[in-house]
C-alpha cells in the first residue's frame, strides 16, 4: 500500500473541499478501497475519511412518500431495518446475498455504488487493463472471460459491475443525490454507472470531488412490495459475486400484470434495466411462457465478449426464475439463503 495523507473532515462542505485535492479519495467503510490499495490498484495520495460525517446514516421517509437512504447507512443496517425490508423486500434480499456478514457490517450504501469491477485482470497489476491503465489493452478479451459482460461491452473493456444492491435500485428508478464543488445535483441510478465505450477508466457519472450524499427511492417503488424478488446465480452457494442476477417486481390488477420492473446484474458495466421486457409483460398473465418471452426481449441485444455465450441463456433463465418467484409473492420471511436459486419454494418451477 502506498503512503497517503489522511484527513477526517467533520462537515460535508469540508469533505468536498478536501476531495478536490489532486489524488484524493473518499474513505467510508473501506471494504473495497483498502482492498484495492493493498493490491496496488488504487494509489490515492490522500484519503478523506468521511465515515464520521454527521447526518448521512439515516433512513427517512419524506413527505412525498419517497424513501431517502443516507450514503453512510451500512448495508447490514439497511437490510435489517424491518420497515425498509418490508417495503423493499427485493432490495433487502439483494443486500443480504452480497459479500459476508462482516463486510455488510462495514460497507456503506454510497460505497456499494462506487465499488469497482471484479474482473481478475483489473485486479492484477501485471495484466493489461484499459480500466486500470487507459490504452494498455485488455487481457480479459483473450483470457478467462466466462463471467464477463454480454451487454453494453466495448472492445476496450468487458468487465461487469458486481453490485447486487444496484440491480433492484435500477429497477425501482432510484435517484442518487450528489454534492460537490459545483453544488448539489441528482442523477437517476440507471445513468450513474457508465458503459465502457472508449473510456473504461470512468466507472460513474461522478465528477472529481463529488460525493454521494444519499440514494432515494420514489414513492411508487413501494407499490411492488408484495411481489418483488432478487435471484442470484453464483459459483458457490454463499459469499460469491454473481455470475448473473435478476431483480423482478410485479404489480397486479386481478390476475393480470399491470406493471413490471426488471433488471439484470453482472451482465454489463452497469445494472441493466430491461424496459422493453417490462412493457411486454403489462396486460399479460403471469405464465412461464410470458416470462420467457420477456427474458428473450431483455437479452435480445446480448452478445458474447469471449467464452461466455452461456451467460446469455443463464441470464434469461435467472430472469424467468425471478419473475416466477415474484409472481408467487414475496415470502413472509426471506429464505435462509437470500436470492439463491437453490431456495426455490414448493410450487415454483425449478428447472426453467
Amino acid at each position, binding site marked *: 500500500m502506498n503512503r497517503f495523507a*489522511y484527513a477526517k473532515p467533520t462537515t460535508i462542505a469540508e469533505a468536498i473541499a478536501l476531495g478536490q485535492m489532486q489524488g484524493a479519495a473518499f474513505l467510508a467503510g473501506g471494504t473495497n478501497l483498502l482492498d484495492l490499495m493493498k493490491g496496488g490498484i488504487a494509489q490515492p495520495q490522500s484519503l478523506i*475519511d468521511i465515515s464520521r460525517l454527521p447526518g448521512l446514516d439515516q433512513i427517512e421517509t419524506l413527505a412525498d412518500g419517497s424513501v431517502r437512504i443516507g450514503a453512510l447507512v451500512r448495508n*447490514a443496517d439497511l437490510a435489517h431495518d424491518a420497515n425498509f425490508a418490508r417495503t423493499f423486500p427485493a432490495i433487502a434480499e439483494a443486500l443480504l446475498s452480497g459479500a*459476508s*456478514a*462482516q463486510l455488510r*457490517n462495514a460497507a456503506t450504501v454510497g460505497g456499494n455504488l462506487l465499488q469497482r469491477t471484479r474482473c481478475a485482470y483489473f485486479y492484477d497489476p501485471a495484466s493489461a487493463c484499459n480500466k486500470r491503465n487507459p490504452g494498455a489493452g485488455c487481457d480479459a478479451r483473450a483470457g478467462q472471460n466466462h463471467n464477463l459482460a454480454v451487454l453494453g461491452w466495448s472492445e476496450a473493456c468487458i468487465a461487469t459491475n458486481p453490485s447486487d444492491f444496484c440491480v433492484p435500485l435500477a429497477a425501482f428508478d432510484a435517484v442518487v443525490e450528489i454534492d460537490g464543488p459545483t453544488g448539489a445535483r441528482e442523477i437517476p441510478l440507471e445513468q450513474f454507472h457508465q458503459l465502457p465505450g472508449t473510456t473504461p477508466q470512468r466507472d460513474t457519472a461522478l465528477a472529481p470531488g463529488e460525493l454521494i450524499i444519499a440514494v432515494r427511492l420514489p414513492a411508487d417503488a413501494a407499490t411492488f412490495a408484495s411481489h418483488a424478488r432478487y435471484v442470484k446465480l453464483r459459483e458457490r452457494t*454463499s459469499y460469491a459475486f454473481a455470475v448473473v442476477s435478476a431483480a423482478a417486481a410485479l404489480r397486479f390488477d386481478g390476475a393480470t400484470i399491470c406493471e413490471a420492473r426488471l433488471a439484470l446484474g453482472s451482465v454489463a458495466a452497469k445494472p441493466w434495466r430491461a424496459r422493453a421486457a417490462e412493457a411486454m409483460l403489462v396486460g399479460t398473465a403471469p405464465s412461464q411462457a410470458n416470462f420467457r418471452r420477456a427474458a428473450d426481449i431483455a437479452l435480445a441485444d446480448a452478445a458474447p465478449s469471449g467464452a461466455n455465450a452461456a451467460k446469455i441463456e443463464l441470464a434469461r433463465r435467472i430472469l424467468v426464475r425471478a419473475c416466477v418467484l415474484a409472481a408467487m409473492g414475496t415470502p413472509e420471511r426471506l429464505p435462509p439463503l*437470500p436470492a439463491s436459486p437453490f431456495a426455490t419454494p414448493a410450487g415454483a418451477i425449478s428447472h426453467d
Partner: protein
Amino acid sequence: MTLSISLTVNGFARSITLDDPRVTLLDLLRERLDLTGAKKGCDRGQCGACTILVNGRRINSCLALALSYDGADILTIEGVAQGDELHPVQAAFIEHDALQCGFCTPGQIMSAIGLLREAQTGGDPERIREAMSGNLCRCGAYIGITEAVLDAQDRLARAEGQTA
C-alpha cells in the same frame, strides 16, 4: 497531522500514537498491542480469520484503517472469557470439535459471537451456515462449527433464562 487515537480494547482504554496512517486494526492489534488472537489469513477481507467486534459488530479488521476507528470499543478473542471461565461460544467450539488446526478459530468464534448478537438466524442450521459464510475453514470443520453455534445459542438462552 496528528495520528493519535483512543480505543477501548477488551475493556481497557488505550491511547495510541501511530507513525503511519496505513496501519489497520488488525496490524495494530497484532504488531503493536501484542494481541495476536485475530489472525492475518488473506489480509483482503475474504477469509474472516481477522474478525473482531467493533462497537459490538463483527467486521474484518484487515480492511479497517485504525485511524478511522478513533473512539471505538473493540473486542477480540482475548477479551471474551471471564477469567478462567470460557465464553459459551468458546466452550461449545471445544465440545463440538469445531476446529482442527485452529488458525481460523478466533475469527470463527468472534464471528459467531457477532452472529448471536445480530439475532437473525434463530435455530435454523441453514441460516447459521449462511451467516457464517464469511469465515473460511480450510480444515473443513464446518459441521462442528454449525453445531457449536447452535449449542452456544442454547447455552446463552438458558443462562439468560436463569438470570431473568
